């Protein structure tokens, strides 16, 4: 076939290690001592990049993701002349894992960015209309760039948390429009963020559902489900991953697990945001 798209390098895990992880899970135990429905600690830092209009660094256990938000003036899409433009991209940096290679984003990077993008877009977390400068001509284009620095598993959730935190951190320059010309002022106002979409990823390993899988658990998982909630009772995106299958019951149970985790993470984000306000 002309072009092989499926060129993602695979990492191996020894059979001994795999058996060990699986045996622990049979007794509802995990290699890092967590409960099955226990997520890793979340550390959030905002405003870490001064040159970006918004930024956040998130540590999810040993997984680290940095997100920068940049703004540029551009043209709106013809079908939404009064709305700003939102674009999300991911780079799986070679520093983050022995299997990440330099080059254009592969399918994993693209999927990750698109799942995050869908969460933000479908929950209408960002007020895109507030990013309109001159209707039909000039709007702010908002770039969310996700930089994965260290992949110790579940870069999806780390990226999601970092993205929304960076959006809360984002300041939009004020503009002055005169005779169709746009002047960017040296004053800023915070970006209007209306909701807090947070993705929660659950791995299915054998017949167990495991919240926030670490890297080794990802190597033994059969499939994965990512549920993005924007409120406790509002699902705004779902993505099944991995080459295994899941049952209807798995999905419903995942939803339950996701809701609890959502509350936890949302609190952590609110805390960081309110502290910044002081």
């Amino acid at each position, binding site marked *: 076939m002309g072009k092989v798209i*499926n060129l993602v390098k695979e990492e191996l895990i020894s059979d001994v290690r795999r058996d060990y992880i699986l045996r622990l899970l049979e007794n509802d135990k995990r290699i890092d001592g967590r409960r099955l429905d226990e997520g890793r600690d979340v550390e959030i830092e905002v405003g870490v990049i001064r040159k970006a209009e918004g930024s956040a660094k998130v540590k999810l256990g040993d997984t680290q993701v940095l997100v920068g938000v940049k703004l540029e003036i551009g043209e709106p899409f013809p079908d939404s002349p009064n709305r700003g433009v939102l674009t999300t991209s991911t780079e799986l940096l070679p520093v983050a894992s022995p299997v990440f290679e330099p080059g254009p984003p592969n399918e994993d990077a693209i999927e990750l960015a698109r799942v995050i993008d869908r969460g933000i877009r479908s929950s209408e977390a960002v007020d895109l209309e507030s990013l309109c400068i001159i209707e039909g001509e000039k709007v702010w284009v908002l770039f969310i760039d996700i930089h994965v620095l260290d992949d110790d598993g579940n870069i999806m959730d780390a990226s999601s948390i970092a993205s929304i935190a960076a959006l809360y951190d984002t300041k939009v320059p004020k503009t002055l429009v005169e005779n169709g010309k746009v002047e960017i002022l040296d004053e800023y106002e915070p970006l209007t963020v209306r909701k807090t979409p947070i993705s929660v990823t659950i791995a299915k390993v054998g017949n167990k559902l495991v919240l926030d899988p670490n890297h080794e658990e990802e190597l033994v998982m059969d499939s994965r489900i990512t549920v993005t909630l924007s409120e406790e009772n509002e699902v705004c995106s779902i993505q099944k991953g991995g080459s295994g299958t899941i049952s209807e019951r798995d999905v419903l149970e995942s939803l339950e697990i996701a809701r609890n985790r959502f509350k936890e993470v949302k609190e952590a984000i609110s805390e960081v945001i309110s502290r910044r306000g002081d």
Partner: protein
Amino acid sequence: MEVGILKRADGSAYVEIGDNKVIAAVYGPRELHPRHLQRPDRAVVNCRYNMAPFSVEERKRSGPDRRSIEISKVTRLALEPAIFTEYFPRTSIDIFIEILQADAGTRTTGITAASLALADAGIPMRDLVSACAVGKVAGRIVLDLTKVEDNFGEADMPIAIMPRDNRITLLQMDGTMTEEEFKEALKLGMEGCRKIYKEQRRALKEKYGQGD
């Protein structure tokens, strides 16, 4: 739905659902090059989802964009659980999906067609994979959105299952739903998949004669 519509491909199928027109072809199991990509214990499944430039209202630039790369990936993951890849070590099974005309729900139509093409290629499978989308329009949960409904709807959720044991192989959603709506949608979607399953079996029987 029609099976075996292409002469050169090892397996093929044409599926029309509403205004969606989709061709799927399967080549393989065949030798995989370069050889370092071969797996000693199983076949590698490749999948390419591609939209014809004329398949949509506004001409689409040909070649893969970010959307089709993601869809290719989730389609591959939706089909792989059904294939006994371990029967064909060191080979590849290449699945090509061509969207000729699109009216929302192309990825699910593509999966439905590709699974028929795999069966037509004689590749041993645990089950057919049947796919269908469900969504929310004006606050109501409905099956298989059209483009217009999708544009004005609040949520869209493609699902693929192996209907014999109802295992889910693809599940995506975007838009907003409450938990209750989601549960209803999942039920309805899986029911839709089972309807597609009947049609798939009918199409296969039409070509290969009777017998369960």
